[in-house]
């Protein structure tokens, strides 16, 4: 395994140009509903979903590695976390970005039905059962004195 040392100040030159560099075009700001498009070519929708999930997965993997290296152990995000994703724009590009990572028991779950939305099906059962299984595995691993 190789060891790579990077001077973080080079990153700062790329990222930190000032507080007012961010833009938002009128079309973007005037969009009424930026989620769940009901029209458009299936391939475009499929590629868009893959691109969003690809961003989430790559960011999660990198964050897990960075946090786990820092603590020389498993980052708690491997059990549960919530990525809050926004859209960000500069002169050339629009990208997704991670605005916040929540990972404590106080994280809002946004799973209650909306008032008046009779067709809303809560996913609390899906998330709760998955979390229970993963937390149980984490407990087993943590309490196992022979697991390296």
């Amino acid at each position, binding site marked *: 395994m190789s060891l790579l040392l990077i001077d973080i100040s080079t*990153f700062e030159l*790329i*990222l930190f140009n*000032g*507080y007012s*560099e*961010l833009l*938002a075009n009128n*079309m*973007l700001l005037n*969009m009424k509903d*930026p*989620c*769940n498009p009901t029209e458009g070519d299936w391939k*475009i929708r499929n*590629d*868009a979903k893959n*691109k*969003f999930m690809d*961003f*989430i*997965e790559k*960011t*999660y993997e*990198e964050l897990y590695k*960075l*946090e786990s290296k820092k*603590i020389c*152990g498993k980052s*708690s995000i*491997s*059990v549960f976390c*919530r*990525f*809050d*994703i*926004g*859209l*960000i*724009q*500069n002169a050339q*590009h*629009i*990208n*997704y*970005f*991670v*605005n916040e*990572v929540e990972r*404590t028991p*106080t994280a*809002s779950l946004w799973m209650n039905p*909306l008032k008046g939305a009779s067709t*809303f099906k809560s*996913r609390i059962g899906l*998330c709760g059962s*998955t979390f229970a*299984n*993963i937390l149980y595995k984490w407990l087993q691993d943590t*309490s196992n004195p022979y697991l390296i």
Partner: protein
Amino acid sequence: MTSFSTLSRLLYVWPPVQQVNGIGSKQQLVYHLDIIAVKTSSLRPVTKVLKVGDSLPKDAVIKRSHSDCGQHVLMPNESGRDWFNLNQYPKVPGATWFAQAYVPTLRKLGEWRVFIIGGRPIYTVHTKYHEGKSTWSWEPVDSFYSLREFQ
């Protein structure tokens, strides 16, 4: 924190006690997200730690570490953006204030909240804050616009 640490000798605590302060401080998270943004060729809003007495940038969002659920956040043009007011908040050991570039799309278009359990995205919900009503709306997400369509 000391009694919490003592308690964790008797019980299993999640998130692990030794990670709690790193999670709360947010500095480490911002630093890591900036590195990842460079690596994945994406963008990040400028975020800088403020020391008591530093001038507070007018066009930036002021927010505090060791806080969640939208607490301790002051938007541009909101009242109370001065150190006298910031120092009135109850003191939390190690807590610091940040200035983060204002991202207009966050309030206008909302956010996608992705729940990752066991390393897998399980559920995504889109949320939007309605300024006039001071309420949130949300809906589960199963379809996406491409970034090109947002251009």
